[in-house]
């Protein structure tokens, strides 16, 4: 990574919304829109999102206390779970009823909170699996080495580049099962990027990653934005959220309770209430933060 030593100063995207800031506020250029999405598990309503829009080419953080429904919402948006009702669309195309693999092919890729590195494949094979439109993945073509050899070499170069950025290049020939928990998180994210997605949805990408690497991971997420991707990520550490997010969506008990700029939203009584249970004059970063990030001189 070009900036692994000195942290990138995040360039915050502003002016993403239209009109007054409130939960469900319209965005100038939304990439993903969810409308009336509700998912019940028995008597429990895990997700009940009236309306939410994710701004394009920005980094949006989805935050909320444990059990708020963030992961379930991810599952619903990506076709891994089916809501009881609601509509949602990606790039203007409705995703209701679209199977998960087709959602992924459309350019909406997610990672999992409980990491799904494929331990019985090598790190390199994990990466190659991420690449899309491989001729060699077709049954008949796969038998003929010459049909896919060239593409495979290309993929390998691409994978190696990503692995280097994620500091996993030394491990490329090891089975992914031999990676540490944090390394698996990194691998899963790198693998997701192999698909060249348009929107990346990361479920707690930083959980279990050590502080030094967190910094470079944050930089990497910032680079994704530079490359034109849109990022939606779940994170509990408010310091990190403040550091890189352009926009924050807060969920509590399945509902979107607040939205806004990361600095403003954390002063929102509804957010503090969701996290702390009562109105308390505490900085959320102090409560949720694991690490102290270098000051960016942008604190308002």
């Amino acid at each position, binding site marked *: 990574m070009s900036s692994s030593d000195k942290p990138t100063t995040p360039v915050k995207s502003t002016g993403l919304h239209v009109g007054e800031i409130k939960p469900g506020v319209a965005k100038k250029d939304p990439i993903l829109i969810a409308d009336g999405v509700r998912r019940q598990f028995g008597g429990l309503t895990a997700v009940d999102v009236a309306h939410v829009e994710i701004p394009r080419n920005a980094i949006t953080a989805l935050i909320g206390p444990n059990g708020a429904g963030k992961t379930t919402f991810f599952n619903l948006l990506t076709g891994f779970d089916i809501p009881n009702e609601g509509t949602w669309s990606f790039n203007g195309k409705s995703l209701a009823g679209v199977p998960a693999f087709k959602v*992924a092919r459309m350019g909406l890729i997610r990672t999992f909170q409980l990491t799904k590195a494929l331990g019985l*494949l090598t790190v390199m*094979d994990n990466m190659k699996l*991420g690449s899309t439109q491989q001729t*060699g*993945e077709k049954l008949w073509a796969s*038998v003929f080495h010459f049909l896919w050899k060239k593409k495979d070499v290309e993929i390998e170069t691409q994978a190696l580049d990503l692995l280097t950025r994620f500091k996993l290049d030394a491990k490329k020939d090891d089975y992914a099962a031999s990676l540490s928990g944090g390394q698996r998180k990194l691998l899963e994210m790198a693998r997701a990027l*192999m698909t060249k997605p348009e929107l990346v949805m990361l479920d707690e990408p930083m959980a279990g990653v050590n502080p030094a690497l967190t910094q470079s991971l944050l930089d990497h997420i910032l680079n994704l934005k530079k490359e034109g991707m849109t990022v939606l990520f779940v994170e509990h550490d408010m310091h990190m959220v403040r550091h890189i997010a352009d926009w924050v969506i807060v969920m509590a008990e399945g509902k979107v309770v607040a939205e806004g700029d990361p600095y403003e939203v954390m002063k929102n009584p509804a957010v503090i209430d969701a996290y702390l249970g009562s109105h308390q004059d505490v900085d959320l970063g102090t409560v949720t933060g694991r690490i102290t990030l270098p000051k960016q001189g942008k604190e308002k």
Partner: protein
Amino acid sequence: MDVLGILSSTASFILDPTTMAYALAGLGLAVHFGFAGLLNMGMAGFMALGAYGYAIGILTFGLPWYLAAFVGIGASIVFALILGIPTLRLRGDYLAIVTIAAAEIIRLFLLTSAFVDVTGSADGLSGFNGPGGTVTNPIAGAGGFNDSNPIPDGEYGFPPFLDDERTWYLRIVGGIILAVGVYFVWRLVNSPWGRVIKGIREDEEAVRSLGKNVFAYKMQALIIGGVFGALGGLMLAFSTNVNSGVYVTSLTFFLWTALLLGGAATVFGPLVGSAIFWVLQAFLGLLFPALAKAGLLPFDSIQAAQIRFILIGVALVLLVVFRPQGIFGNKKELTFVK
């Protein structure tokens, strides 16, 4: 005790068509379980379809033997589709339950006297390999498998492989099918297709999240493995009569033993596993009765021959506990220990 005789009969099993049939079906199981993680407990059913499809194709439909072979293969593909469409979306264990039941259904269909004209019921079918068609079915005069043998009559080879032209023809045909099959599977599993399949074996959701149509891949794997099962059945049918009594559940378990012996997630494992399995099986089947006759075992010789099945069961258990990756498998690539 005729030690030499026992050893020589045992050795001949290395090149026995049955060994090759097992190796083919084992290869299919390797694709199913070893690489795709599909728990197929009904391989005997696929083999039965291959064998009966072939025999019925000749005897009932009067097809030439090579077209009849495709009837057997086609039947196994249809069987895979019927099994796969409802079960491949469910969790893996369901496939195991459904396949074991489906294989039994097939066997009972073949056994019932309702279709005796076609299936031969308990007697099974015979005479479909020629020569010159069969008396029971003159249309098959198009030529049986035996007629296609280009080897002149006579005995060839050296003991214990001194055999007639038909046996050698069987060995050559089986060897060719095996060689092509092994090469095909080896290519498959070392390709990007194989990568997807191995990913699915471990975590479907992860593979799905990368945009792969998991269901389609599992179906392809189920069909390919099933076709190898049918080829195994075909090989058996080339060499002898078909009878539903052969395609029982214990055949499936023998296949599993051979597969696990060689290594489930390997291409050569099923081959070597089958060879070892059959050689051991033959050896013990001759040794124990001989020992019993010599008064060294407290059983009569028929009972003594059965001891080997107990030993096979014990061996299977020991294998899974102590060397789950088999002879050739990579310990790190275990499929059922995480």
